[in-house]
């Protein structure tokens, strides 16, 4: 279990400066997803929502097109200071290489990085809303909230039943799929709108693709419900050096997803969409 959730934003578990060489001890498949578990005896317990930069110890940079080269950012699915779990979906050369790893293989990992989620204010009900592989940081958050005696409603959206198999990573969750092959046919944001209509004394924790997060952000803004959104962005380093992962802020200027986030209070964000990206 991680350290107790901080009461407000800005808190983080510091990362050891050294990349750790970890041994993969378990690989399990949940439909379209792979969960990799590694022994991490020197890893401090992360906050839910923090992330790591990860590369395979071998054959990283020798694949097709000589990629991957840079490490990849992953939210921590679960971690307890002895073992860390990551959620993978094979979508490119980096995730493909990591999905190939088997027990006994090596991982290079830097983290925990970034700012995680903070605790629900007052007696607001926590509603966790995830899309696809973006469900990862919500698993640890749900564990944490339930362990602290709080309620934690989990709403997850997936493409289809194969992906919805990932919902089994949660103590309990309600599911929507695009094709109706599992759970409700429709968008997870529709489940969220119904949940908020039922009881608006809530805080929303969101992570998922940009269009989903933008819908969550706009909905919560309209209903004046606080939300914390964990953003994803392409990044080279994960610790504030490259300035590649910026997101525009409502107050003007940019924030770095890696060091100022990845979790942001929704009211600080101008939009969850990249410039030119349609909802």
């Amino acid at each position, binding site marked *: 279990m991680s350290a107790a959730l901080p009461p407000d934003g800005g808190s983080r578990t*510091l990362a050891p400066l050294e990349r750790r060489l970890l041994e993969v001890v378990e690989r399990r498949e949940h439909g379209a997803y792979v969960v990799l578990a590694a022994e991490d005896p020197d890893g401090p317990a992360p906050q839910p929502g923090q992330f790591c930069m990860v590369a395979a110890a071998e054959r990283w940079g020798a694949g097709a097109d000589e990629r991957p*080269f840079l*490490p990849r950012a992953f939210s921590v699915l679960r971690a307890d200071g002895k073992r860390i779990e990551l959620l993978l979906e094979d979508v490119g050369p980096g995730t493909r290489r990591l999905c190939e790893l088997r027990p006994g293989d090596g991982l290079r990992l830097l983290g925990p990085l970034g700012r995680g989620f903070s605790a629900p204010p007052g007696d607001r009900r926590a509603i966790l809303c995830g899309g696809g592989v973006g469900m990862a940081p919500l698993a640890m958050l749900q564990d944490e909230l339930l362990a602290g005696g709080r309620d934690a409603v989990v709403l997850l959206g997936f493409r289809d039943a194969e992906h919805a198999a990932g919902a089994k990573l949660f103590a309990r969750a309600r599911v929507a799929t695009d094709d109706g092959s599992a759970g409700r046919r429709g968008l997870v944001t529709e489940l969220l709108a119904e949940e908020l209509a039922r009881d608006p004394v809530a805080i929303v924790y969101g992570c998922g693709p940009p269009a989903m997060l933008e819908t969550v952000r706009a909905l919560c803004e309209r209903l004046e419900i606080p939300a914390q959104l964990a953003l994803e962005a392409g990044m*080279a*380093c994960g610790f504030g*050096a490259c*300035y590649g992962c910026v997101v525009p802020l409502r107050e003007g200027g940019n924030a770095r997803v890696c*060091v100022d986030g990845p979790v942001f209070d929704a009211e600080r964000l101008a939009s969850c969409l990249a*410039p030119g990206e349609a909802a």
Partner: protein
Amino acid sequence: MSEAVRFCGLELDHRVINASGTFDAIAAQRVFGDEIVLRFPFAAFVSKTITLEPRAGNPPPRLYEAPAGMINSIGLPNRGLLGYLEHDLPQLAALPVPLVTNVMGSTADEVARLVEAIDARAEVAAIELNVSCPNVETGLDLGADPRLLGRLVDEVRPLTGKPLIVKLTPNTADVAAVAQAAEAAGADAVSLINTLRAFAAHPDGSGRAWLGAGTGGLSGPAVRAVALAQIAAVSARVEIPVVGMGGIASGRHARQAIDAGATLVAVGTESFRDPLAGERVRLGLDALEHPRAAR
């Protein structure tokens, strides 16, 4: 054990520094705490590029993973001169190594104002000029033309007694001629290479640019061979010390840059992959220079 090295009158603990814009010592303290100060990977710290006015940087996407490297179009986001002096400088001055401030202007007057302001700060040990900025009249990089570059260094040289390092652009016909012009105008050192101008096609196959700014700069192992050739060409033509960089990721690469004529080496893109890359390069270099001690 690393040997101290003299560079432009500065006493440095070893030969490995960072490339400008590839390590944010302030952000690193937020992420790693005091450990990054206690175990600072570089013998000097080079700031990211500071401009007269604040810059937001380029629209995303800003990064593209290239074969054996990356293309960036970050666009030099920074707080501007006043923001740097008030906010960043006190924190950077607390680092355990000498501070080099990198500045860029689009006119000689802008560069002069930056150099004068930085010269007034005792916390800064040296000034590096980023001359990879397009000239507002010609559109050419200030550092692409030996005559333009020579004129610029001529104008700002009298404004500071601090060591003046000119960061050369590789996007020029004859980098050694530019280096000679910098030396003739009074530069104390040159550093190279900056990133190679590069294009990343959108993965959707439309042929349009992936990067928000259209083009970017290529770095990483992909540019190492080019860097070694340019370091050697420049070192053969100037007497002033050379800071060599471009794809350096190990002690062996650092040794190659030193063999090509570099006095110091800088680690850039490799620090993105590993915050302790600078330390790893230094230890690797030590092991090559003192094979017995390392055994």
